[in-house]
């Protein structure tokens, strides 16, 4: 099992003909993801040449792509100026999951897109996220496939390469993953820690969870309370940004300590107070997971 995506995932790539879109479409097809359609307005009727002779039909719009291919998930690689509209189009098309990779989407565009997705009952992952991968089943986004392996660990993170670091270490010691989810580094994201924790709790194959947070906001604190109240499975946590100065954005739009709120200390304390084992260094994550699994 896995969460959010699996071998039934039928993916449409919005922005399939762009530089990033075409590169990652190839990567996803190579991994075995069922990429059933691409969307680029004005290029409907053409097709995308994937690896191994795979041809992906291109449509002008999401409604056609979904109607003609039965896609249930979309991934968005379109530039920030159009990403907000692309998310609205996806949420309106009938897919149930929209993975928004694009970095730099204006936050007010996202406020509207999230409201629209709530109205439509559609899950958004991201924006500004690496996507997700369910090893051996499906990969949607940009996560490097070679660092993952099938196994019992659920990984959820606000970061990209820091997640790879953790996943790589898990895989190195033989701890594979059910699903690795990057929820994104923006202030307004569609899927948060709690959504992923709930899904991992419900997934019978997941036995332990790694949660990687960073400075900014209170998502980790809320997640910690949730873990304490609702989760039966062990959770290991890590927070990046102990040395970050207040008021400065640390790369991610959402990674900023506002006044005294959202510090790493606060988050680590919330983890400890709620029974989450806290890794002091990324290298400690593996050991703590092994302890938790006994």
């Amino acid at each position: 099992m896995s969460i959010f995506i699996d071998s039934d995932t039928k993916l449409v790539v919005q922005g399939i003909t762009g530089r990033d879109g075409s590169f990652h479409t190839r990567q996803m097809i190579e991994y075995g993801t069922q990429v059933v359609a691409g969307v680029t307005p004005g290029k409907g009727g053409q097709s995308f040449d994937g690896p191994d002779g795979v041809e992906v039909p291109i449509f002008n719009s999401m409604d056609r792509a979904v109607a003609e291919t039965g896609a249930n998930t979309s991934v968005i690689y379109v530039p920030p100026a159009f990403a907000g509209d692309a998310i609205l189009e996806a949420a309106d098309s009938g897919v149930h999951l929209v993975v928004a990779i694009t970095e730099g989407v204006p936050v007010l565009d996202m406020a509207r897109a999230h409201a629209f997705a709530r109205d439509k009952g559609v899950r958004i992952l991201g924006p500004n996220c690496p996507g997700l991968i369910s090893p051996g089943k499906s990969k949607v986004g940009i996560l490097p496939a070679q660092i993952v392996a099938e196994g019992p660990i659920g990984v959820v993170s606000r970061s990209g390469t820091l997640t790879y670091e953790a996943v790589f270490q898990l895989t190195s010691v033989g701890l594979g993953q059910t699903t690795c989810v990057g929820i994104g580094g923006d202030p307004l994201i569609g899927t948060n820690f709690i959504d992923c924790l709930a899904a991992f709790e419900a997934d019978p194959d997941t036995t332990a969870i790694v949660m990687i947070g960073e400075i900014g906001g209170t998502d980790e604190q809320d997640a910690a309370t949730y873990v304490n109240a609702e989760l039966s499975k062990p959770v290991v946590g890590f927070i990046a940004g102990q040395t970050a100065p207040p008021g400065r954005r640390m790369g991610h739009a959402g990674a900023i300590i506002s006044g005294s709120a959202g510090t790493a200390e606060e988050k680590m304390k919330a983890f400890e107070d709620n029974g989450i084992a806290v890794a002091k260094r990324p290298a400690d994550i593996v050991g703590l997971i092994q302890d938790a699994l006994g």
Partner: protein
Amino acid sequence: MDIHEYQAKERFLAAGIPVPPGEIATTPDEAESIASKYGGPVMVKAQVHTGGRGKAGGVKYAKDAAEAREHATKILGMDIKGLRVEKVLVTPAEDIDTEAYVGVLIDRSTQSATFMVSAAGGMDIEQVAETQPDAIRRLAVDPRYGLLPHQAYWLANFLYEDPGLVKQASKAIAQLYRSFVDSGASMTEINPLITTPDGKVKAIDAKMSIDDNELFRRPEVAAMRDSSSEPPSETKAREAGLSYVKLDGSVGCCVNGAGLAMATMDLVKYYGGEPANFLDIGGSSNPDKVVSALEIITSDPNVRAILFNIFGGITRCDDVANGIVEATQRIDMKVPIVIRLTGTNEEKALEILEDAGFSAYTSMDDVVEKAVQLANG
């Protein structure tokens, strides 16, 4: 991106918010002549992108133009939290009856623009939030409807009893929301929103931060950027498309990915060092970016060692290694560099680096420990 008080006030005025007049002076002469034009007493206010101007002596009351000149002389060139004051705003001093706070910011939990208002204005709102949480009224603006008139009224009603003041404040609050949206802001505040003895509501201070992601479609707002108010290294990083924040330590950090960059800084601290910066070079192996990054890091005189921490995911490690080698050949390096590269094709990458004479590692802990040793040694 932060904009100055006087720029935020221009945005406010365009939206109709009552803001007293004011002009910018860059010399004491200018300050004096602006003050004498207004006639009465004025405020001389340092324009810098930081809070706590007042406590630092950057905001002064002047009873006349001569005093305005004196204050401007002191304030211009003053250092406030590491920022040099290049401009002062000269504005007529207002008679103040009451001071309130009105702010809007993007709230993560409600996923919307959210108002905070308080009758306890003129103070730091975070302090109010901690000590008197009941003194703040909050409202999340549903992005589907925008701020509705009765909501603006509800907020204003929390600040004042008098119907006339409530009416003026409702209007100003609605205009503030308009200004927030039209500016592509992530935060804006009026602190204080004052009432005068003759029953007028006015915004006498103004703050606004723009969502960086909005700038591409708002050239008139992007043009408000004042690079003089940030370290030149950060200006350079921005122009090179790098995320960079200058810090005070001695270990220069060059990392791909924001989360990994923060974790690297934390690990520097863990091993007894101090990071000199946050720097995310992104996913590219382009030598030009690496050159810019190295130039920025080496321009910091505190840096005693430079640490690369690269996780090769989609990008192949050998490509990144070639980029680093090429970049370091293009600039004259005076401090030691240690490099950690792991992920796809890491063996090939390590070979390239060692051939070029670098200390290359595959473990993040090892490279950080080594860098700290070099910087502290």
